[in-house]
C-alpha cells in the first residue's frame, strides 16, 4: 500500500475513528467516562497497548503465521498476545502508579477484551498495511479512542448538574451523547480513504 503512515495516523484519530466510526471499544468507554482523570489514564493505557500489540501482531502474522500456514489461528494468537501484554502493563502500573491502577479497577484487565484492540490488529492485516503503517494505525486508533472518551467525559462533566430524566441518568445519557457524537462523525466518512 502506498499510503503515507502519517495520513493513516491522522485519519485513524479523526476520520476513521475506531470508536465513533467502527463502533469498537464501547464497554469501557461508556463506564470509565464518568471522570476525566480516569478517562485520560485508560485512554493512554489503551493507546499504549494498541500501538505495541499492532507492532507485535504484525511481526507474528507475517513471520510466524503465514510461513507456517496456520493463519486460521490468527484470532487466538492475536488475542493471547494482547492478553499477555495487558497483563504486563497491569503489573507495571501496579508497581509504578498504584493510584491509577486502583482507579481503573476491573477496566484494566478488561482492556484485553476491548474489541477495538483486536479490531486494530485484524484491520491492519485485512488492509495489508506495512509495518510502519500498522504502528501508525495502532497509535492513531489509540489516540482516537482517547479523544472520544475524553470528549464524552468532558460532556458528562458538564451535564452532571443539569436536569436529566431519572431513568436516563448514567448509562442512558452516555448512550445518547455517544449516539450524537457518532452521527457527527458520519460526516467525516469519505474525506480520507485509508484502505
Amino acid at each position, binding site marked *: 500500500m502506498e499510503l503515507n503512515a502519517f495520513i493513516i495516523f491522522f485519519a485513524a484519530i479523526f476520520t476513521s475513528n475506531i470508536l465513533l466510526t467502527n463502533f469498537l471499544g464501547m464497554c469501557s468507554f461508556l463506564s470509565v467516562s464518568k471522570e476525566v482523570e480516569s478517562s485520560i489514564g485508560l485512554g493512554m493505557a489503551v493507546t499504549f497497548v494498541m500501538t505495541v500489540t499492532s507492532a507485535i501482531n504484525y511481526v507474528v502474522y507475517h513471520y510466524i503465521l503465514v510461513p507456517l500456514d496456520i493463519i486460521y489461528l490468527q484470532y487466538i494468537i492475536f*488475542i493471547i498476545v494482547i492478553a499477555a501484554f495487558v497483563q504486563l502493563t497491569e503489573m507495571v502500573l501496579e508497581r509504578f502508579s498504584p493510584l491509577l491502577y486502583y482507579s481503573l479497577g476491573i477496566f484494566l484487565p478488561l482492556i484485553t477484551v476491548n474489541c477495538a484492540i483486536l479490531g486494530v490488529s485484524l484491520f491492519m492485516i485485512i488492509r495489508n498495511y506495512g509495518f510502519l503503517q500498522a504502528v501508525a494505525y495502532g497509535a492513531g486508533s489509540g489516540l482516537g479512542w482517547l479523544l472520544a472518551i475524553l470528549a464524552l467525559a468532558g460532556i458528562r462533566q458538564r451535564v452532571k448538574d443539569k436536569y436529566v430524566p431519572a431513568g436516563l441518568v448514567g448509562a*442512558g445519557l452516555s448512550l445518547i451523547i455517544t*449516539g450524537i457524537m457518532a452521527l457527527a462523525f458520519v460526516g467525516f466518512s469519505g474525506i480520507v480513504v485509508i484502505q
Partner: protein
Amino acid sequence: MKKKEIFTTSAFTQNSVWRQILGICSALAVTNLMLNSLVMGLGVIFTLALSGFTISLIREYIPKRIRMMVQTLIIASYVIIVDLFLKSYYPEISKSLGPYVGLIITNCIIMGRAEAFAGKNAPIDSMIDGIGAGIGYTLVLLLIAFVRELFGFGSLFGIPILGDWWTKWSIMVMAPSAFFMLAILIWIINTPKLKRG
C-alpha cells in the same frame, strides 16, 4: 443459590446489557437485522455456557496472575470451534456468523461472567449463569433489532412487513440508532423501578 435463581439473575435482574452495560459493541453491529441478532445471540449463548463450565472446572488451578490470558484462550478457542463447526456442516449460516467471530471473542459479557461468576462457582452453576446471561443478551438484541429492522428495512427476519409505501428510515440502518434505541430501552426499564424505589 438455587439454579433457577442463578438463571433469572443473570438473564434479567442483572442483565448484562442494560444493567451492567456490557456487550455493547456487538449490540451495535448486529441489531440492524433480527436474523443477525439471533445468530450472534446463539453464538454468545453457546460460548458463555461452555466457557463458563470449563473455566469453573479448572478454577482451582488457574494462577491469579495469568487468569486473563487463560480465560481469553478458552473463550477464543470455543468461538473458533463453533465457527469451524458451522463452516463444515452449515456453511450458509457460517457466512452470516463469519464477520462476528472476532466480536464474540472480545464480547465483554463473556469475560465479565468468567471473572464474576465462573471463577468462583461450581461448573453446572456457571453454565446456567452463562446461558442465562446469553439469553438475556439475546433478548435485548432482538428487541432493538425489532425496531431497527422494522423501521429501517420494513421487514422482520427478512420477511417484508410494511409495504412499499413506507420510506425506510436510513438512520435505523446506521449504527448510531442502536445507541438511541438502547438508551430508550434503559429509560423504559428504569423509570418504573425508580418510581417504586
